[in-house]
């Protein structure tokens, strides 16, 4: 049996992981799981060892995503952490990359193709 591979999507909006799963799940063969808080995802990461974690920077209100990135990268070195953002802010992108994010994707009309490139 083929080993299942996971993508975790951390976003306060529960519809976003559903959308993400419908766009990327079938086409890429990954199972997409959604979480509204980084803390909820940590425990399941131990068993699922996701290939990718997508963090929606703007939706996680009141949460500093930098410690979450640091923690994920410290515990799961092979997991690629990708931050999505509504803002085209170079300083934020650089700060998050320095914290260990593997990529920073601005949400715009080209988001889907950028994400396909990252996942494949």
């Amino acid at each position: 049996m083929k080993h299942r591979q996971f993508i975790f999507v951390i976003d306060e909006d529960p519809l976003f992981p559903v959308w993400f799963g419908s766009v990327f799940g079938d086409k890429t063969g990954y199972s997409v799981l959604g979480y509204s808080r980084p803390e909820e995802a940590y425990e399941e990461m131990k068993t699922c060892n996701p290939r990718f974690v997508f963090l929606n920077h703007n939706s996680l209100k009141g949460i500093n995503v930098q410690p979450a990135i640091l923690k994920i990268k410290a515990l799961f070195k092979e997991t690629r952490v990708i931050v999505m953002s509504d803002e085209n802010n170079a300083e934020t992108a650089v700060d998050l990359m320095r914290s260990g994010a593997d990529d920073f994707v601005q949400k715009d009309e080209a988001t889907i193709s950028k994400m396909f490139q990252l996942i494949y």
Partner: protein
Amino acid sequence: MNSNGTTNIHIIDDDRMLIQAIKNEIEKNFSDVNVQVSVFENGEVYAVAAKDKPDVAIIDFHLDSKYKDAMNGVKVIDFIKKRSADTEVVMVTGEENAEIAVRAMHHGAHDYIVKNDNMFRKLNMAVYQCLKLRDLKEELKMQKKISYISAVILTLLIGTITTISLVAPHTF
């Protein structure tokens, strides 16, 4: 730092006025490390004219104001990193663009600074961090050398003692 004790900083930007302003700022704030600043107008000139390996390179992204097909800043980072992997690079650009910032970081830039009111403060901080990083790397290299030499001496010593104890067991 070079063998002659100077810290080399290269600036590659097609804006002559800004080049001069950055040069003045760096020379004013880093005089204690015997800084030597060299300036270049684009990547092509840099590839031909840059002689020494810089400790820090400050590079603009758009370098095509005079030559349409000029290398962009990311290509210049690749060129520098290929020639001198230890050089720290700071990209300074008018482009507030997260995608270019991420590209620059993926290609090895230490920082990405947008040209605005704050740029000199951020640039000074970035250059300071780059020089600290350089010092730490040199210290690490030195420690590795010392560890290697210590290991060699220890191995030789153990070998000598073992040989003596086999050849002349009553020596000890």
